[in-house]
């Protein structure tokens, strides 16, 4: 078994997603994609662990996560479109109106 390699790949994917959110300052779509990447990596980890532990709940969770991710992306893209319609830009930098 190459359990640790799979695990490492999943975690690296997750970290890449996180970095994509944190470091990205220009594009809102990249942020959405990073979130998708994070959800994907989590799904992957669930699947790996489900196989390793020989447990079905991980796969059930994965299916649910996929559903949620699809819904979330749909809503996110809808917000993005609405936002673009008002502001004319989708830069993350310009999302700073609600300052503390």
């Amino acid at each position, binding site marked *: 078994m190459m359990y640790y390699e799979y695990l490492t790949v999943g975690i690296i994917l997750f970290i890449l997603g*996180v970095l994509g*959110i*944190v*470091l*990205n*300052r220009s594009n809102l779509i990249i*942020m959405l994609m990073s979130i998708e990447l994070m959800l994907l990596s989590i799904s992957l980890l669930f699947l790996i662990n489900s196989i390793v532990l020989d447990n079905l709940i991980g796969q059930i969770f994965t299916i649910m996560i996929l559903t949620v991710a699809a819904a979330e992306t749909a809503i996110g893209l809808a917000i993005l479109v609405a936002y673009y319609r008002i502001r004319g830009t989708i830069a*993350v*930098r310009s*999302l*700073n*109106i*609600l*300052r*503390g």
Partner: protein
Amino acid sequence: MFILVLLIPLLSAIISGLFGKKIGTKGAGILTSSCITISAIISCGIFYITCLNSSTTYIKLWKWFDSELFTTYFGLQFDSLTSTMLLVITCVSALVHIYSTGYMARDPHIPRFMSYLSLFTFLMIVLVTSNNYVQLFIGWEGVGLCSYLLINFWLTRIEANKAAMKAMFVNRVGDIGLVLAMLMILKEFGALEFATINSLLVTSAINKENITIICLLLFLGAVGKSAQLGLHTWLPDAMEGPTPVSALIHAATMVTAGVFLIIRSSPLFEISPLALTIVTILGALTAFFAATTGVLQNDLKKVIAYSTCSQLGYMVMVCGVSNYSTSLFHLMNHAFFKALLFLSAGSIIHAVKDEQDMRKMGGLIKSTPFTYIMILIGSLSLMGFPYLAGFYSKDLILELIYDKYYIAFAYWLGSFSALLTAFYSIRLMYITFIANTNAKKEIFLGAHEPSKNITIPLLLLALGSIFVGYLAKEAVLSNVIPPIISNTIKIIPLLFSLFGAIFAFSLYNSTIVGRIWGPYPAQDKNQNWNLYHKFYTFFNSAWQFNYIINHFLVRNIWKFGHLITYRVIDRGLLEIIGPRGISKIFIKLTQNMSNLQSGMVFNYALIMIIFTTLFISGYQFPKGF
């Protein structure tokens, strides 16, 4: 009858003060004068009972403080000392009341004035009749308060305000001494009644050092009230009040309270030779200092004020050689002739349209001969002219001082101040009455004798200053043994006085010398003139005491108060540690914290992830954060 002497002045003060508008100016004058006169008659009766028939009366009124360690009653004590003081206070006060109705006739606030005068008399009576120190302290503070109100009677004048505040503050310095002395007495004896203290002094073993400290603190109180050297500066300034007030403060009531305190505490003073020596020395110095200052004053009232200071020096001085009854006797005589002098001065001031500067008077003998005679009687009595009141006490004081040979310099200081006293009395009379006039023509022509309300008290006081010494000497001085000293010494004060009088007369009479010595000497710029000018300035400004005290003491304390306690401590340290500093820190902290919420989504994400990571990994913040 014994309580009435207290209640009647209080009643007159209350009625005149609270219902002054209803009874009117005339009513207030009549009411208060008659009340104090009744009080004076009663005090004559008390004098007869307690002093002539020597039956001391004690009246216990009601309980005041009642704690485990310390019980005090309101109580009255009428012994010969109290009754003599009562007689002096009420008689002089009654005459001053009658005088004020004439002198203040055109003042719009007569009811208030009469009310203050009566209150002053009442509190002075409280002071002398109390049988313990606490009750005495009520009167002590009360006369201080009343002196403030009376000096400040014309309250629109800034000088009067300042003088009144000065009187109050300088008196407070002495009052602190009295309070501390009371605390020490309480610690030492456990009681504040005079009778208890006096009997404990005889029986129990007492700590002499503590008694000395008590005596010195009591004497500090007396120094403040009786205007001895050091705390005397308020007395000349108190001349800002109306003239009857000066007469009351300086003759009968306020300044005598200090001497009264010493006489009342005489058993304590007898135990402490050190305190007695200090009392004598300070008294002699005061007598001398005030006499030298009085010589070169140009204000009519200030001359008399400094002579009061000087005579108080005599009284305190003779207390220091344990002859308290002589001191009381001089106090009595002094009350009469000093009231006479002040009221006559008021009469002159009235005659020349409220001008107090002697240099702007002169030649008044023709227009006001009656006042001249009055002031002549008063001055001769003050100088100790034989057969007048001052003679009986003043010469006796000097003889008694000489008798204690170890303090002989006090005798010489006293004798020399007798010379100076004669000098300034004659100078006052000469410049005011005999010399060529300096007044404006209309003022000089308009000078006239005052109304009956003013002349009758003067006449009665003049009779008092002539006869009181002779009449009262048996009653007051029954226990004084005249010292056996040589006749030359006995006659020296008289010779000195005569010399001073003749010297002053010749100096101001001769035109050549008069120009040099006069108030405005010739303006030549030679060496002599400069020396004379310095000399004159020094004595005219009372040895520069005011300057020294203001410059070195008051100003430094003021500066300390502003710079250190106000700016550094109050507005500085306490405020920075306190409200302002804390609010500053919190505002900065909250601003920093709200700056974290920058509006940048990726920052939020970073913070969220960091803290989620910390949470998941089980990181714990250090305790106490």
